[in-house]
């Protein structure tokens, strides 16, 4: 108490100097931020607004500036026939769109769930001490380093119905009785996509979970060992609750990423109705089918869905935005 009081009287001019300094620092900070904010506004903000605007017009790809404002017609419109029957049309009653929504959600939920479970197993293995751990960690980084397009091509060769090694292996092991056209059959196309995505993304999950596992103090395990607690019980009662925050962050990031999947599906199972996702169908309408405005409406809806999910995450996760004490 007294120490503070004396300090206050002795250096009375200090706050004044500091506030001058603060002012100039804040001014400099503003100038540092302007280029980045301008860049983001041009490449993200403005294009997003234009996409939303296009979704409310009848713009076509060949005549970007010739579209007329049509309101929400691309989303939903209706006409009443002479017979008195009302016919609805537009995105919200389009079965192809809802098929894509279903595919995207199914893909996102299944892939992220399996990646989390397998990632947890891999992370637990890497957290144990054994000879050759460095080699394993290096090995699991390889799928992560390979470009998505390349891994899609590698796997579509391995999954090839005639000459693929997967069919050969499964036939030899007796898992299948005849060759399967993995990527071309509607029943197996989604499985093929899931296999490749899980192969490619589990390493990322495993490394994030591993980082969480390494924060758990070692003496927790030692105490459990001395008390003779079964390892499985230790995992569920001690390890899992402690790494849950780290796992949750990873799950949310992956979920948001999986919602917008495009490249893997575009290359691995082109034109398959069973795997077509929201991003794939939007791009198709935008640039292949000359339904620019309709495609814009689809991408706007996907954006809204992801925006709501991100909002929920920021709200529920209480992400730290304060940036420390400086």
């Amino acid at each position: 108490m007294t120490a503070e009081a004396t300090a206050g009287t002795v250096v009375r001019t200090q706050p004044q100097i500091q506030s001058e300094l603060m002012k100039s620092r804040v001014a400099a900070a503003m100038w540092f931020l302007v280029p980045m904010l301008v860049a983001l506004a041009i490449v993200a903000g403005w294009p997003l607004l234009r996409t939303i605007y296009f979704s409310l017009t009848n713009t076509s790809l060949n005549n970007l500036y010739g579209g007329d404002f049509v309101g929400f017609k691309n989303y939903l419109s209706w006409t009443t026939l002479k017979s008195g029957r009302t016919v609805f049309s537009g995105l919200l009653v389009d079965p192809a769109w809802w098929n894509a929504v279903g595919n995207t959600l199914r893909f996102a939920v299944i892939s992220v769930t399996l990646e989390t479970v397998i990632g947890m197993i891999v992370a637990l293995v890497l957290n144990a001490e054994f000879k050759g751990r460095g080699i394993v960690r290096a090995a699991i980084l390889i799928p992560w380093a390979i470009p998505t397009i390349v891994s899609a091509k590698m796997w579509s060769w391995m999954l090839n119905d005639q000459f693929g090694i997967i069919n050969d292996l499964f036939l030899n092991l007796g898992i299948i009785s005849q060759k399967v056209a993995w990527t071309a059959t509607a029943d197996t196309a989604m499985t093929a996509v899931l296999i490749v995505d899980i192969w490619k993304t589990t390493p990322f999950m495993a490394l994030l979970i591993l980082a969480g596992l390494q924060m758990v103090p070692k003496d927790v395990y030692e105490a459990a060992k001395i008390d003779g607690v079964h390892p499985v019980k230790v995992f569920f009662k001690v390890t899992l609750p402690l790494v849950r925050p780290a796992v949750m962050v990873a799950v949310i990031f992956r979920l948001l990423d999986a919602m917008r999947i495009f490249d893997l599906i575009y290359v691995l199972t082109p034109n398959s109705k069973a795997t077509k996702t929201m991003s794939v169908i939007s791009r198709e309408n935008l640039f292949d089918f000359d339904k620019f405005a309709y495609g814009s409406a689809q991408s706007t809806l996907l954006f809204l869905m992801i925006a709501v999910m991100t909002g929920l995450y920021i709200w529920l996760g209480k992400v730290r935005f304060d940036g420390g004490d400086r």
Partner: protein
Amino acid sequence: MTMDLWAITKRVAFYALVLFIVVVAVFPFYYAILTSFKSGTDLFRVSYWPTSFSLDNYAAVLNVGDFPRNVLNSIFVASVTVLLALFLAVTASFALSRVRFRGRGLILMTILAVSMFPQIAVLAGLFEVIRFLGIYNTPWALIFSYTIFTLPFTVWVLTTFMRDLPIEIEEAAIVDGATPWVIITRVFMPLMWPALVTTGLLAFIGAWNEFLFALTFTSSNATRTVPVAIALLSGGTQHEIPWGAIMAASVIVTVPLVILVLVFQRKIISGLTAGGVKG
């Protein structure tokens, strides 16, 4: 005696699991390399070990078509994108991590939100801007559009990194009357090299692998980047897919990445977990 047996079983099971993980992780890449060295009818005979060695596929990829050009395009686009993003991000993250001002939380939140953007949501609008600027079907269209994911990522990671540096290193410079610009270039930059290398490398990989924008904003073989070139590699007819050439191209673009990632292993893992943005 029984205890020993149980311990041995557990050990064997553990190492079997380890072996399984390694084989599954590495096999597709190994098989691509194996395939890329096969030619002719050999290609269509399934084998698990190397049986023949031919460089035909590599010769085909490097001499026919625009593949070497595509590799150069990718290197140019990814390098310029990363340099641009790092330049904008260093100063911005200094402001966001070391200076207290109103609205800082809002800006950080916007940056995180942009990094979660579905790229498809800006595709139509970006297409219009790129057409307007007259850079459609040039590398600049890609450098321009890639900023949407490299910039938020680099700003976010560098802000986390700078936030954790002690204030003492700045104090001496402030007392000497150094301007923020001098503080960044003289005090922070030397300390930030490791972070810059890691962030730059991760952003480089992101730009190198990007597909949607590259597919949409380029239209001729000579301006395409590697992922699009590989995706669109086709044979003489629709049904004749040149698997050997595709695998050779895949190996050519993946080997440098895998080497980079293995060399910078530790840095990449810490960068991924600290920034934790995208995979």
